[in-house]
C-alpha cells in the first residue's frame, strides 16, 4: 500500500478522550494533505468526551466523499488504548491493518503521552510520505519543548 493509491484510504484512530487520538489524526491528515492528497477527517469531540471512547476518521485519496468511514472498511485501525481494541475491531476491513500499543516497547517511550506519536511512526511504515513532511507536521502540532521527545518516539515506532 502506498501514498499514491487512487482509491480512498481509510484510517481510523481510536482510544479514550485525553490519550492523543485527535492529535494523532490531525497530524496524519496534515501529512496526507501536505503530500497533495484530498483529505477529510471526522470526529466527535468536546471536553465532555474526556475519559470516554473517542474515534477519529481520516480518509484520503484523489476524491473523498463522506468524511466518515463506512462500516467495516478501515484500511488501518490505530488504537491508542488496549481496552478499546475489541470495541472498534469490527471497523477493520478484511485484510486491514490493526496497530495497537502492543506494537511499541512502552519502556522505551520518552513519555507515556508520546504513544500517539510512536504509533504514527509505526503507521508511517505503510506509506511513502517523505520523512521531512512527517517531521514538519509533528513540529507544527507540538510546542518546541516536545520536539526532541516526539522525534524519538516517532523513530521508535517506525523501527518497532
Amino acid at each position, binding site marked *: 500500500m502506498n501514498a499514491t493509491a487512487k482509491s480512498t484510504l481509510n484510517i481510523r484512530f481510536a482510544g*479514550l*478522550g485525553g490519550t492523543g487520538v485527535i492529535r494523532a489524526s*490531525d497530524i496524519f*491528515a*496534515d501529512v496526507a*494533505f501536505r503530500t497533495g492528497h*484530498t*483529505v*477529510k*477527517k*471526522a*470526529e*466527535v*469531540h*468536546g*471536553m*465532555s*468526551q*474526556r*475519559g*470516554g*471512547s473517542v474515534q477519529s476518521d481520516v480518509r484520503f485519496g484523489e476524491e*473523498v*466523499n*463522506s*468524511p*466518515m468511514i*463506512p*462500516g467495516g472498511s478501515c484500511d488501518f485501525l490505530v488504537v491508542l488504548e488496549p*481496552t*478499546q481494541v475489541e*470495541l472498534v475491531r*469490527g471497523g477493520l476491513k478484511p485484510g486491514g491493518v490493526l496497530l495497537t500499543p502492543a506494537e511499541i516497547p512502552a519502556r522505551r517511550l520518552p513519555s507515556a503521552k508520546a504513544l500517539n506519536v510512536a504509533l504514527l511512526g509505526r503507521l508511517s511504515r505503510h506509506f511513502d510520505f517523505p520523512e521531512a513532511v512527517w517531521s514538519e507536521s509533528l513540529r507544527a502540532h507540538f510546542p518546541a519543548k516536545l520536539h526532541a521527545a516526539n522525534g524519538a518516539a516517532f523513530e521508535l515506532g517506525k523501527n518497532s
Partner: protein
Amino acid sequence: MLLSGNEAVALAARHCGVALGTGYPGTPSTEILESFGALGGKAQWAPNEKVAAEVALGAAFAGARVICTMKHVGLNVAADVLFTMAYSGVDGGYVLIVADDPGMASSQNEQDSRRYAEAAAVPMFEPSDSQDAYDLMGAAMETSVRWKIPVLFRMTTRVCHSKSPVRPKFPLGAPLPPGVASAGVPEFVRNIATHVMVPGYAKPAHRRLRAKLDEIQLWNDAEGPNRVERRSGTLGVITAGISYHHVREAAPDASILKLGMSHPMPLKALADFAASVERCVVIEENDPWLAAGCLAAKLAVEAKDDSVYRFGELDVDRVRRILAGDNRPEAVPPRGRPPELCSGCPHRSSFEVLKELDCIVAGDIGCYTLAALPPIAAMDMMIDMGAAIGMGLGLRHVLPPEQARRVVSVIGDSTFLHGGLPGLVEMAYNPPSTGHVLLILDNGTTAMTGQQDHPGTGRRLDGTATYRVSYEDMARAAGVQRVFAVNPVRGKAKLKELLAESLGRNELTVIVARSPCILAAGSILAFEKEKMASTACQPENPAQT
C-alpha cells in the same frame, strides 16, 4: 489549507467584512468565535445566546456586518430575538450561525433548526463541508445585506468538526483588501418605524418580511447556491448539508440536487429535478422537513422511513439502506466507555457530599452533568440551561417537608450566569416554606465546551482582563441572607457540614463551591498572578469562609 467547518466559516466571516462576532459556547459551534478572534476579528462571549443575538442586532442596526454563534438549543434561548428581528430586518448584515447536533454527540436533544427558519421566516443556508461553509458564508452575508434580513446558517456536528480542504478568496494572514475591511461602516440612522416593533409598526413589518421572502424565493430558484449533478435518469436525490457527501458515496450514479439555501425552498428547481428522474428520494438528517416541503408542493418524491431514520445522524451505510428501502430495525452499535469526570475534578467532591447527604439534586448543564451517570449517579434531573433553580424550587413547593428539605439546586458558574440569574431572583421572590439551597459549582471556566471564559472569570475571549462578577454579591443583592463560599476539595468536610445545616433550616442559602477545573487551573493561576502583579490590587472575591 485543511480546515474544520468552524474554522472555514470564521475565515469567511473575516473575508466578508464582519465587524463583530458574538455568541455563547456550545458544542459543536464553539470554535467558530475562537477562530474568528484568532484570525484578528473582534470576537466576544456573551453571558447567553439571547444577549449575544441582541448585541449583534444592535451592531447590525448600526450598519455593521455581524455573526452570532450558538448551538441548536442556544437558538431556543435566542428565539425571542430571532422572531422579531426578522420583522425589523437589519441595516447592515446579520448571519446567525446555529450548530445542530444530530445524534446528540454532546447535547440534550436533537432538535432541527430548519424549523426555526420556517417559523421565523428567515433565509437558511446549509453547508456540506468546509469549502461549502466558506463559500456559503459569503453568500449568506450578501443575502442578508441585499434584503436587509437576518439569515440563519445551519451547520451540524460533522460539518463543524470535520476537516477538509479549503481554497479561500484571500491568502491566510494577508491584510484584507480595503473594500472588505471597510464593509458596512457603522453609522446611526434614526428609523423608529423599522426598529421599534410596536403593533403599529410591526404589522407593516410582517408584510414587508413576507414580501422579502417571496423575492428571495424567486432568487433562490433562479440563481441560488444550489447545484444539480446530472447522472442517472432513474435515481435522483434531493439533499443538503453533510448528507450530500454520504449520498455521493452511497450512490455514485445518482443524479443529485444539492441545496445550499434550503429556506425559502427553491420549489421550481425542486419540481424540475423531481420530474427529471424516474425515482426521486429526499435524504436528510433528523426531521422530514425538506420532504414535507416537497410533498406539500405535490412533488413526486419519497421520504426516508422516520420510524428508523429520524433518529441519529446519517452515514454512508444508512443512506444505502434508505435508498434500498431497507427499513428494518438497525443493529445497535457497540457501546464505548462513556465520558466521566476527570480524576481530581472538584465536582467529584461536591457530588460525593450531595450523595452522602442523600440530597434530591435538581441539576444543570455542564461537565458536572456526568455526575448523573454511575457510579456517582447523584443528579436527579437535568433539562436545560438554568433549570436547576426553578426545578428545585418547584420540588420544594410541593414535596412533603421531610423530602423538600433534601432538595438542592446545583448549577455551574457559566450556566448560572447564562440562565440561572432569573431563577435566583425567583428563589428570593417566592421562597418555599422549607427554604432552599442553591449550590453554585464555580470551577472558574466554561469547562465542558473547552474552557471558555465568561463574566465570572474576569477574562474576555481574547484573554484580556475585565470586570469579574461575584456570585456572592449577586445572591445577597437578590435577597438571600445566607451566602457562603467553600473549597469543595480542601474543605470537603466543611461543605458537608454547611450543606447539612442549611438543608435543615427553613431559609434560603447559596453556597459557592469554588475550586478550579483541574484542566484550567494552570491557566487561571497564571492569569491571576499576572493580574496581581500588574494592578497590585486586592483579591476581588471575599475570603473563603
